[in-house]
């Protein structure tokens, strides 16, 4: 629905800050953000600028979500092997 997309974009416009971190800075910090989050702490409160970037940047957000889910699997000892993952392709 294009209207949903427009509404999300409108929120992004209004939540724009004068200073925002770059994608490179996000890349540098995102592994720490995931570590904090998976430790059960409030990563968004500890790293608000990173959270703001993730809310604005779909590419960085998708990388973050993948990293978080992958690390969660590893922490639980459930990271699939390469062979298992190839079977899903």
């Amino acid at each position: 629905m294009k209207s949903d997309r427009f509404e999300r974009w409108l929120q992004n416009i209004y939540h724009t800050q004068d200073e925002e971190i770059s994608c490179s800075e996000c890349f540098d910090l995102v592994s720490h953000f995931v570590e904090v989050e998976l430790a059960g702490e409030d990563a968004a409160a500890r790293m608000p600028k990173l959270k703001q970037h993730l809310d604005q940047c779909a590419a960085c957000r998708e990388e973050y979500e993948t990293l978080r889910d992958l690390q969660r699997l590893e922490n639980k000892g459930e990271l699939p092997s390469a062979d298992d993952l190839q079977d899903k392709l």
Partner: protein
Amino acid sequence: MSTTRTNQEWLHDLNASGATQEAAIADLRDLLLRAALYFFSRNLGDFKGLNRDEITQRAEDCAQDALIAVMDHLSDFRGDSKFSTWAYKFAINMAMMAARRERWKGVSLDELAASDESHFFASIREDKSDGIAPEQSAMQAEIQRIIQEVIEHDLTENQRRVLFMMVFNEVPMDEVVRQLDTNRNAVYKMLHDARRKLKSGLQARGFEIGETLALFGASR
């Protein structure tokens, strides 16, 4: 299966020589391959027309590129996460670029960029036309008019171009980066500057955040 190492052991082994380093590199490469395959398995729609072997080969290529990037940036690792978390992000980044490149192969972004935003706003009006009070509909139209006015008069050509591609046509960031031969930071900056101008434009005309989002039902 990779052996389990502490962060210190990863750094020690990867910086060692001989068999110790070779074993660590092999284990790291396995982790990076799994990260790339994991991303691909979540985004199979990007690989229509490719068979499993071809997708696997692309994952192998991503793992190899990520391995080189990790080794090049080893001294940047600060230890504020598990080493694997830090390393995975390189493979995920490579995998995302490869997946989006595959999905948008053969699509002319110049044609998309040459279109204007009027079709986008027209389709929004069609989407939202049912069950809305005339006054609310008129306010929505006014906000869209302001946005179009700011886009037309206040944005630079590059900001408009990136906006049309990414916001109105949903072209992914990495494909825009590739087409414009630039980097994510530059594209993000263009979008950020465009958002700032649009926010200022709306606020200057009296549309503050709560009221505007409520008009479009986006305040929830």
